[in-house]
């Protein structure tokens, strides 16, 4: 905890990513990105398609090994060698691809890799079903076909399973890679409520999204990636939608930009 002592009184960052790079042959998907996440903070991660958002998030969730850079969690340098490592550090991820096993049902997917067992070590399908029913109901009360293979579920239902899987377990850092892409308005609102609730519990959240409205509604801070580089990081009240769009498209702020909250104060 000694090297990066924050200002006295300020809480220590949950996550510190330093100089993260990811190369695929000649393609540089993530280029020297440094990024922090505070407890109870929601950071919006934006950028054009292929900007490197998912790669950066996958590196933090242990799904992808970085070419360079280091990750600290609670001040300690950690090796995210596998998704299990990340989970052990309290990092839970809702992947953009959802990462569901199509032939298994919702409870089996929810508990995949962390199955509940009876005292004889058998799968406790009954308890997994009951728990799944409970947590899925908080996100979508109409979720009833829990025993169907998830391949036969709708895109929104599948997304709800992926979200439920991330929040069911003990989460400290939540990565949400476009979690509402397939959701209807009421489910999206539920996810927004969920994000606020988790933030109030002191959980740090990375929210990857293309939805400007969601980002301004939910995030405390917004960072923008452009061609693998981090081109901007601003508290949400410092920027307007046009500023963000400019960062996403051109990789820079409008030439006449000044922090909007200062502007308003004048």
């Amino acid at each position, binding site marked *: 905890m000694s090297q990066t002592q924050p200002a006295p009184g300020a809480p220590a960052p949950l996550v510190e990513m330093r100089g993260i790079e990811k190369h695929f042959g000649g393609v540089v998907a993530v280029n020297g990105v440094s990024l922090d996440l505070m407890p109870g903070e929601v950071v919006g991660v934006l950028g054009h398609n292929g900007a490197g958002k998912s790669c950066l998030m996958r590196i933090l*969730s242990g*799904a992808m090994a970085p070419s360079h850079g280091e990750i600290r969690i609670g001040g300690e340098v950690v090796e995210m060698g*596998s*998704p*299990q490592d990340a*989970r052990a550090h309290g990092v839970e*991820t809702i*992947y953009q*691809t*959802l*990462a*569901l*096993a*199509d*032939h*298994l*049902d919702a409870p*089996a*997917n929810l508990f*995949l*890799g*962390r*199955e509940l*067992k*009876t*005292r004889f*070590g*058998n*799968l*406790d*399908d*009954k*308890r997994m079903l009951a728990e799944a029913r409970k947590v899925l109901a908080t996100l979508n009360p109409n979720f009833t076909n829990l*025993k*169907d*293979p998830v391949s036969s579920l709708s895109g929104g239902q599948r997304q709800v399973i992926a979200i439920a*899987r991330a929040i069911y377990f003990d989460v400290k850092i939540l990565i949400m890679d476009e979690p509402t892409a397939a959701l209807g308005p009421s489910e999206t609102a539920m996810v927004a409520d969920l994000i606020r609730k988790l933030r109030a519990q002191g959980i740090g959240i990375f929210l990857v999204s293309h939805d400007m409205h969601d980002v301004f509604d939910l995030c405390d801070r917004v960072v923008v990636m452009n061609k693998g580089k981090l081109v901007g990081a601003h508290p949400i009240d410092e920027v307007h939608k046009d500023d963000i769009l400019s960062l996403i498209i051109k990789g820079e702020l409008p030439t006449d930009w000044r922090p909007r909250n200062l502007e308003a104060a004048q």
Partner: protein
Amino acid sequence: MANISQPSQGAWSRLLPSNSATAFHRVSALLTLAILVIAFAFASPAFLSVNNTLTILLQTSVIGLLGIGMTMVIITGGIDLSVGSVLALSGTVTGMMVKAGVPVVPAMMLGVCMGAACGLFNGFVVTKMKITPFVATLGMMLIARGAALQLTGAAPISQLGEAFGVLGNGALFRVVEMQPNGFPKVIFPGIPYPAILLVIVAIVASYMLRRRAIGRHIYATGSNEEAARLSGVLVDRTKLIAYTLSGALAGVAGNVLMSRLITAQPSEGVMYELDAIAAAVIGGASLMGGVGGISGTMIGAFIIGVLRNGLNMGGVSSFIQQIVIGFVVIGAVYIDQLRNRR
């Protein structure tokens, strides 16, 4: 958490296929089997005789043991082309041990270990060297067959003693009565050991696939390997286990077969891998991974066993048999797809 213990009726329902699609497949496969049995019984009165039933049981037990291992590998999205050769290598190793003076039971265990080692090697090549299962197990198919032939100089090892033949020829509850004329009369032929072994292995495998975490991981790996990995499933370990079990079961099948012949035959089991694959596929396993089950494979093994035997009794040549079984495999998968497309 008061309800951790299962009600008995719940435990049963878990042993049955979980959704209607697999249930439909199971019923249609069973129906096919029943029709085959009835047709062959009409065609040849000897078909339903006790002796012939025993023969079918014995033939099916070898296909069934191979098929169970194959099913686990196929569910992970792989294939094991080496089981026929591994069967031969394991049986030969056991035979050589027995010939060298090792007691039968430890010798057979060593033979099974030989099979497991071959399977472990398959798993290693697939997971660590990242070679596709088809190619990896094709290599093992040649390696194991070559090793079996080399070890024995391609000559069968015979005169392995009565104890070696017990597994393949013995039966539980066999009742034999000495007749006044000095000839033994079989009152009850008993349940052949290979059939008992098959039932035990099938129950254990089914339990493993349905009720244990490793089984769930086998399905998840075949269903979506990347998703399984991201969910924290140790995908490589899961595959290693599946291939090792397939190799070990090929070893068991090899011992059953060679014990039945009381001879270790290094050239035995050629093309058995295809029967095992056919049994799994007729039983509803998908070569795309994620789908399959032991009960289905058992029915598939019996369909093949009954077909082979019935056609034999009807005097149909082995060439025609191959043609028939080929069409049955295609037909079974086609019907399955028709149902899925609806």
